[in-house]
Every structure is written in structure tokens, then in C-alpha cells.
């Protein structure tokens, strides 16, 4: 490994004159300007409320939802794995006995505080039943007060997946 000598710029007369380089730079910027002013519609900026983002894939972590089993009952068994894994402590579960014979336990309340949530996806990773997922594709949350952002079990169950694969794949 020898020493690599990097060529120093700025010693030639052309470079010391500054102006040729400045003119070249201004030509570059003017090229961009004239291209964009002659047809502003081709600027790649997404004009958000009118143009929705097109780059949301099934790996995008959007708003949470609770999945259902094949028989259309809740897949969650209230094991508290997600609440334990949650680094933001934004999942609040109250468990109850399950009476319909499908399973033993289910959540009575399943609240997620979306203002606390950091959308890390650990709850999805932790879930043994594929019961909680973030594949709703919802990225914009609107509410008028803080309580609007605490999303309940019913709302979580009513949210649909945006990329097919509606039901839990656990069993």
C-alpha cells in the first residue's frame, strides 16, 4: 500500500479565475430551471392530498389491526406478548375467559395509544398467533383530541388489511 497522492484542484489559471467555473455552475442550474419552468407538471414532487403516495408496500408499517381466524372470531388469545415487547408501552390489554369454545382466553379490552406508539413493529414480531398486524396501509391519523387516538379492540378488528391476507395464518 503506497501513499495515494490526490490531485489538488484550484492551481490552474482557469480555476483561479473563478468565473468560468461559476458560469458553468450557473449553466447547470439554469438548465434545471428552464426544464422545470417550461413544464412544471413533470416535477416528481408528490402533491400529497391530491396525489396519494404510491410507494406503500406490504412491508410498510401502518396503523395496527387485529386479525380474525378462519371462523371469523378474534385471533388474539390475550397472551400479553405484544404488550411486553412494546418499547413504548402503548398496548393496554384486559384479558377475559373465552366462552365460545374456540379457545380459552381472549382480550376484553385491547387498546393501543397511537400517540405513544412508535410503529416499531415489535408487537407484530412478538405475536405467536399472527393476531396483530400493521399491514393496514393507513399512514395518516386524524383526531380532534387525545382520546381519538386510543384505538379500541372493535376498531382494530374492523380495520382491514390493505394487501390481501385478511385472516390470521397461525392456525
Amino acid at each position, binding site marked *: 500500500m503506497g501513499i495515494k497522492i490526490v490531485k489538488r484542484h484550484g492551481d490552474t489559471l482557469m480555476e483561479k479565475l473563478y468565473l468560468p467555473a461559476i458560469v458553468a455552475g450557473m449553466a447547470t442550474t439554469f438548465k434545471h*430551471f428552464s426544464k422545470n419552468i417550461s413544464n412544471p407538471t413533470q416535477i416528481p414532487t408528490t402533491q400529497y392530498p391530491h396525489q396519494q403516495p404510491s410507494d406503500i408496500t406490504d412491508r410498510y408499517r401502518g396503523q395496527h389491526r387485529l386479525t380474525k381466524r378462519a371462523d371469523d372470531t378474534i385471533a388474539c388469545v390475550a397472551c400479553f406478548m405484544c404488550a411486553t415487547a412494546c418499547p413504548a408501552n402503548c398496548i393496554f390489554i384486559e384479558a377475559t375467559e373465552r366462552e365460545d369454545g374456540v379457545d380459552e382466553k381472549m382480550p376484553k379490552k385491547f387498546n393501543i395509544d397511537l400517540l405513544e406508539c412508535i410503529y416499531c413493529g415489535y408487537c407484530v414480531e412478538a405475536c405467536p398467533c399472527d393476531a396483530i398486524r400493521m399491514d393496514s396501509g393507513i399512514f395518516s391519523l386524524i383526531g380532534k383530541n387525545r382520546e381519538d387516538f386510543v384505538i379500541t379492540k372493535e376498531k382494530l378488528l374492523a380495520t382491514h388489511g390493505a394487501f390481501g391476507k385478511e385472516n390470521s395464518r397461525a392456525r
Partner: protein
Amino acid sequence: MFSVEGTIIALVITSLLSLGSVPILVWMERRVAAFIQDRLGPNRSNIFGFRIGGIVQSFADMLKLIVKEEFYPKHIKFKFYYMLAPAIVFGASYLTFAVIPFSNTLLTNKGLSVVQLLPIELGVLWFIALAGLSVYGIILAGWSSHNKYGLLGSLRATSQIISYEVSMGLAIVSMLLTYGTIYLNGMVDFQSQLLWGFLPAWGIIMQPIAGIIFIITAFAETNRAPFDVAEGESEIVAGYHTEYSAMKFALFFMGEYVAMAASSALIVTMFFGGYHLPWLDSPTLYDNPKIVLSVIGVVLIPLIIGMIYWMRRSNKISGINEPQRARETKILTILLALILIGSEIGILFLLNAEMTNQIASYIATAIQILTFVVKVFMMNFVFIWVRWTLPRFRYDQIQTLGWNILLPLAIANVIITAIVIVVF
């Protein structure tokens, strides 16, 4: 005999070009910057759905700055100087406009009238004095705000002013030698001649080196990139106006744009023929107002139709139907068409009217003012264009540039100019 019409016109034009153009310049700056960087820039704020290319944003910004809370930091000892600084910056920038001639003398029914706010013989000297004064406002602001970043900003402004003012003065001296007058009207009249029969004798053609030096130092004098070290927001927060808010900040902000417009006006006056159209001096304009008017009438048609076409094509999002914008496009199309028809009718009316000396003079004045305004806005565009192309100079680099390069060049230019003038 001296009448006031010209002064009133000059007052209106001065106010429009300095104060009135600030929102337009801010909008221009943001949109040009956006287009240079392949972005869109502000295009959302609107009044009843009218966004007019986003220019409404500037008025919203102004309104916000006006109604914002007046906040005075407690640690400021000399409130008087703290308050005085933005007033100096803004007032000095505004007053530099006073000596700019906007058109040739106007012939009214009371006599000749100069279209210039202050028709004084000082001319360029007034500009140098007041443009230099605006830097004192910056220095005072940094010092009186009792803040280390403010002080650093004003120190940088000081280091900058000592490096460019001398070269600027010498560049102007060589122009004074060329024109033989310090009166700006005289300079503009000189530039209406032709060089070797075909080139307009503009300052930039006769004195390219002085022109370049003056333009560079004018950038430094208005505190704009690449010489905006006094602000240096990436290095010293906001420099001299760190402690300023609301309207006091707005005065600095507007002062920068007014200074830019004033510098553009002086550059245009001294180097780009002032209010003269190239190859069309004032006597020719007075003698043939009808020909000039008909040319304008013909040129206006493709210009406005092209503008309508461009507006209709660009005022939309491709592939999305937006009723608000569609409505705006429709109304703007009608408005532009009405402007076209109205001005064509006006021109036809003037062409058929009997051409007295007075009407010819008014027409010539209007054309020359329009020429001047267009030229000033083109120069303003150059200011903006440079700002979004070049990175900021370090302040020792500015000093090197000022003392080691520009000053010897300016002195050499003065000497050569003097020799040429004495010999020939």
C-alpha cells in the same frame, strides 16, 4: 419650469419597485430556488381557491410577520439601538432608490418633469453613501442584541465591508471616467449611443471588468449569497438578526430584498442601459410613438397567448382532476384574454388618436418605465439564480478576493481607463 408629475410617478414606481416588489421577490426567490432544485416550491396557500402560482404565500407570510407578537429580549441594554438597527437597514435600502431615473424627462402641460424621486446631482455618490450605511444597521443590530452569534454576524459584516467597498468605489470611478458624469441621467443618456454603429454603448460592453467587479461587490453589499456570511445560518444561527422577531425581523428581511432591488436598479442604470431599449434612444421613441406602439401591440398577442397556454398546461397535477385548480385556470384564462383584448383596444385607440407632443411623451415614458422594470426584474433573477448556485464564501476568502484580486484589478482598470481617455 419644473412640475411635480414626474416626481409623483417616480414616487409610485419607487414604492412599487422597493416595497411592492418584496412579496414578488420573495415568491420569485422561493419558486426559482425550487425549480433549480427540481422541486415545486410554495403553491398551496390560496384566497378562495386562487393561488396565482403560489404568490399568495408571500402575502400570508407578511400578514403573519405583521400580526406576530412584538417580543423584546430582557437582556438587551440599549433598546434604542436595538430598535434603530432594522430601521437603518430598511430605510437606507429604501432611500438608495431615490436617485434612480426611471425614464427620460416627461413633458407635461406645465413643463418638463424629471421622473426621479430626488433629481440631485450626487447620483452614484448617494447610492454609495446609503448602501454603505445599511451595513451599519447590520453591525448595530449584532452589537445591540447582546448575543454572541449576533456579534459574530456583525463582525463578519464588518470584515466583509472593508474588503469590498474599496473595489466597489474604484469600479464606480472607472465608470465615472467613462461617462464623464456622476449624474445617473447623464450616464443613461450616454448609454443610448451606439458603439461603432451597431453595439449599444452599455456600461457592461465598454467596461466589462468594472461591470463584473461592480456586480460582485453589489452581491456583497446586499448581503446575499455567495457573500451572506453575516447571516451564515448554518454556522452562527442567524447572525445579526438572531435576537429579532416579528416586524423587526421583517424589516431586515424586507431590507435585504429592497437592497437587492436597489442594487439591481443601479446595475441596470450603470451597466445595462438604464431605461433605454437597445437601439432605440429617447428622441427616436418620441418621434415614432405609433410605430413602437404597433410593434408592442403585435408582440403582445403571442406573448399573452403563450402565457395562457403555459398557464393552462402547468396549473394542474398530471393525471388528477382538481376542481379548484380547474376553476382557477378557467378564470385566469378569461382574465388574461381580457387583458389582451383591453390593451389591444387601448393601443388601437392611441394609434387613431392625434399624436401631440405631450401624449408622445407620456407613451415614451410608459415604455421606458416598463423597460426599466423588466430589466430590474431580470437582474433580480440573476441575484436569485446566483444565490441558488454558489456556496457561501468563507469570510477570509472574501477578504482575499476583495484585497488580492478585485482591488488590483479595479486599480488597473481605473489606470487603463484614464490612460485611454487622456490619450484619445
